């Protein structure tokens, strides 16, 4: 080309302008760097890049292959969920929150519902069966979420097979979710006051079988990665963050537990009856990526233990209610899944359309307007797979939230990227970020 063109060369065709994108200005960039004495390069990694999770943008200042400064840029997936929720009823809120951190929807829903129940003052009235179902679903969700963390984390560091196994296990969990709630993701299954519907016929034996299968399958990934010398070289001593760093940065979850502190809200500040389950809090004392990887691996087994105990409880609580008795909060229709895959309750429709005008009015008011929640503000926190997920809810006494705020662990923990990666190699940033396990849907909300 005779004339310097800073952009890709183009030619006009009948379909329109066609650009030939080549290597861009790489050659001139390298020449330019060679001519200056400074070896400092600023590299923009993402938001469209296969290595960091999702649309995360990393601005890296490099000297050779060493990272001297790293900054994370977020906001590419901001959807205004908090603002939208102020315009929808309290029940409709679950449909929004489930879409924040899309890998752990049931945690989002439960944190939100616990906060709303606290505002309503009905925390003690939530039926035991509903709490047990919530625990079981959350632990299943923890498995599927950890599976994505492990699988994609390994993939990003160049190991492909662990992801095949991890997604195979995740599929088992998603099938259970589909059987119970009708949806594989974004279920809006947990509702203020309980859960949307009871377990379908034959669910418990199916879940027992899945637990057995998963326990057997987990060994595949364990044998692939634990003790694997390549994997250990890529993860040991990488992404170091000690306890002081974690507390000052507000880091919770596996990253905090990798410093040796057994901080798990399920044990420390139990909710949903977690105090009645036997399980161990897994820690590591290496403060590095490998420690966090081992924590996630071992938490899978603990989740399976909790699920088994929950199933035992559910068998004893057969036929118990899954929604608070208060008809002013609980939706009147207990939906049943029909053969066409649609939820409906013929008995309820018969009642409101045929016999009781008051039931119809009540149904209409509750579904369109929703229930009133007494004014005040609360903070409810649960242990999500990524750390403390807090729901800060303010009500003004109306039928919609006055202000919703989620303290998202991904959002907070992503701040540790510079502390974990500055001074290290470029390639190790990927491991460090993967060990935080940020989900951009949750980060940006």
């Amino acid at each position: 080309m005779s004339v310097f063109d800073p952009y890709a060369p183009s030619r006009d065709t009948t379909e329109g302008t066609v650009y030939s994108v080549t290597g861009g200005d790489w050659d001139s960039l390298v020449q330019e760097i060679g001519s200056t004495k400074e070896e400092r390069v600023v590299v923009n990694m993402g938001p469209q890049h296969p290595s960091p999770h999702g649309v995360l943008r990393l601005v890296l200042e490099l000297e050779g292959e060493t990272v001297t400064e790293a900054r994370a840029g977020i906001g590419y997936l901001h959807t205004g969920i908090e603002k939208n929720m102020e315009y929808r009823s309290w029940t409709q809120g679950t449909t929004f929150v489930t879409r924040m951190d899309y890998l752990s929807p049931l945690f989002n829903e439960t944190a939100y519902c616990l906060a709303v129940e606290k505002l309503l003052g009905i925390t003690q009235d939530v039926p035991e069966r509903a709490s047990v179902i919530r625990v079981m679903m959350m632990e299943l969700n923890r498995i599927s979420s950890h599976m994505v963390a492990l699988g994609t984390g390994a993939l990003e560091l160049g190991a492909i097979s662990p992801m095949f196994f991890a997604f195979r296990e995740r599929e088992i969990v998603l099938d259970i979710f589909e059987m119970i709630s009708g949806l594989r993701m974004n279920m809006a299954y947990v509702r203020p006051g309980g859960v949307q519907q009871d377990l379908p016929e034959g669910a418990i034996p199916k879940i027992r079988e899945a637990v057995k299968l998963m326990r057997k399958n987990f060994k595949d990934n364990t044998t692939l990665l634990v003790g694997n010398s390549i994997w250990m070289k890529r993860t040991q001593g990488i992404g170091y963050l000690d306890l002081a760093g974690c507390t000052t940065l507000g880091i919770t979850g596996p990253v905090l537990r990798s410093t040796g502190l057994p901080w798990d809200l399920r044990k420390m500040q139990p909710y949903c009856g977690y105090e009645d389950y036997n399980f161990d809090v897994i820690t590591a004392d290496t403060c590095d990526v490998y420690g966090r990887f081992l924590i996630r691996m071992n938490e899978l087994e603990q989740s399976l233990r909790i699920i088994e105990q929950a199933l035992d409880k559910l068998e004893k609580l057969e036929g118990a209610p899954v929604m608070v008795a208060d008809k002013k909060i609980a939706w009147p229709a207990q939906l049943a899944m029909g053969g066409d895959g649609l939820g409906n309750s013929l008995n309820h429709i018969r009642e409101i359309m045929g016999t009781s005008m008051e039931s119809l009015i009540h149904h209409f008011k509750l579904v369109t307007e929703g229930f009133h929640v007494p004014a005040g503000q609360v903070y409810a926190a649960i242990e999500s797979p990524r750390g403390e997920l807090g729901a800060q809810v303010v009500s003004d006494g109306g039928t919609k939230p006055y202000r919703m705020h989620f303290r998202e662990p991904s959002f907070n923990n992503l701040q540790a990227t510079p502390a974990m990666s500055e001074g290290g190699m470029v390639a190790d940033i990927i491991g460090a970020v993967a060990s935080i396990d940020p989900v951009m849907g949750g980060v940006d909300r």
Partner: protein
Amino acid sequence: MFGAKGTGDTSGYGGLIRTAASTGSSERPYGSYFDEVADDLERAYPMFSEAIERVVVDRGELTLHVKREKLVEVSKILRDSLKFEMCMGVSGVHYPTDAGRELHAVYPLLSLTNNRRIRLEVSVPDLDPHIPSVVEVWAGNNWHEREVFDMFGIIFDGHPGLTRILMPDDWQGHPQRKDYALGGIPVEYKGATTPPPNERRSYK
């Protein structure tokens, strides 16, 4: 059929105006560990009565309403003497009718040592939305304060780099304020412009 006027609107786009009630100060004993926290703070911080405007105990949670000038001092005492090592961020709340204290910032604190939670609340007028930053006390509040600035326009003085974090850098306004309507932004896609939800026919 379309064009319902008045408050018959259940879609949420009708701009229904509601006012939030603010609760008064609580009386002692507060119950739970809250008395102990208040006592410890009074002992460790002699200017307690000047700095803390109200102590509210509601639904098993303790909220200390702190004057903004004293926020950093109180935070340091809470972190060092009362062992509230972690601040779980900050969230803004906009009360347009609460004259002189329209913007609130709420800080949930967590003590790993004592396994306790409390909450700090700071309120500032809309016309002077300045709050001292607590990033020097809890570094993890960096992004949280940027988010509150982005969404509410509260300016955290002393923050190392207070810029927008979720919205684009050149965005106008602060979206989570109550006077910022939902919708309001026309969507442009492939040359056609879709009006914002609140201007579409069915919502008018």
